[in-house]
């Protein structure tokens, strides 16, 4: 699982990536993050991030009933969300390869 401060920077990116795959609601997204081994995201971190995506027009919500229990707010990624995702994915790739280079033992790097 990712240490907390790391998650803070990458949660939006992870959420957008999951929403690109399919629309989902808060609890479903939390389970997918946990299943991917990324993080156990507390509600107090997850829901503000989702509301922020909504308010900035990167995801649109719609209410849907559930078979059991209360109705759910499903989020769908918008074109603006897709372009932020593309941009941040590229940043992430650069960042990750930079860190990999630094982490590689000196012998292997040569």
């Amino acid at each position: 699982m990712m240490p907390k401060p790391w998650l803070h920077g990458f949660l939006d990116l992870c959420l957008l990536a999951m929403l690109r795959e399919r629309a989902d609601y808060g609890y479903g997204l939390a389970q997918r993050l946990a299943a991917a081994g990324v993080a156990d995201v507390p509600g107090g971190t997850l829901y503000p991030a989702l509301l922020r995506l909504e308010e900035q027009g990167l995801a649109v919500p719609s209410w849907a009933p559930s078979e059991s229990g209360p109705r759910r707010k499903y989020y769908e990624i918008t074109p603006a969300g897709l372009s932020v995702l593309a941009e941040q994915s590229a940043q992430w790739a650069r960042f990750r390869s930079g860190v990999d280079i630094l982490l590689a033992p000196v012998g292997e790097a040569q």
Partner: protein
Amino acid sequence: MSWPERFLAELVRLGVQQARARRLTEDTAAQAAEQACDPGGLFGPPHLYARHLVAELAAPVAAPPRFTQAGPVLLNLTGVGKRYRRRTVFDNVDLTVRGGEVAAVVGANGCGKSTLLRICAGLTRPDAGQVRRTRRVGYVPQDGGTAGWLTADEHFTLFGAAAGVVPRRARSTGAHLAARLAWRPEPAQRAQQLSGGTRQKLNLVLGELHAPDLLLLDEPYQGFDQGTYVDFWRQVHSWRDAGRAVVVVTHLLHDLSTVDHVLDLGEQR
């Protein structure tokens, strides 16, 4: 009051518009229901979650992290501790603030925020640890610091003289700095006739009058209305962007998304 009612009330108190606050409250209730939790269990105390949410919503998703060209170290605390009689107020506090950075000192009432700031300013001696600071320091206390029977201009002259600034220049600098906080001092008005918020503006101007490199501010916005509060933070960010270092004591958590360091004195123990 129930959790949603207290949450709504706090959102409104923090300046969120009624309709938006109600929508956020409904959303929050639905989110808790979705997780089959009560809101307190999922989000914690309503007033704290309200502040957290407001701060989170204010942060843009796509904003890249701000990489400042950090300037020289202007304040450095190492292992600083303070006791009051036999009680440890705080100990082992480390803090480094460089030019171009803003640090916030937070924590519950009574955890020693103001004392720590006075130690930063050199007005109180720590019982342990080391403090190094730049020579030019501006300190704005939470209250006091002004003389009731003097006018704003007389304050400018007096504080200017202490910093070796000639009276005319001190007065014009004071007027200029006051204008940035949307305040035009009345020539004959004494400090005791000013409202609490305006007296704090006078305090801020006096703290900045001699163009210090390090500004130490102790909850300087008491009595400010929303507009002045926004002006105040704009001012803090312009000091920062001009390469100065700023330390702000605050209890408003939604200030924290725009600062470089957060020192939580409540967490020390």
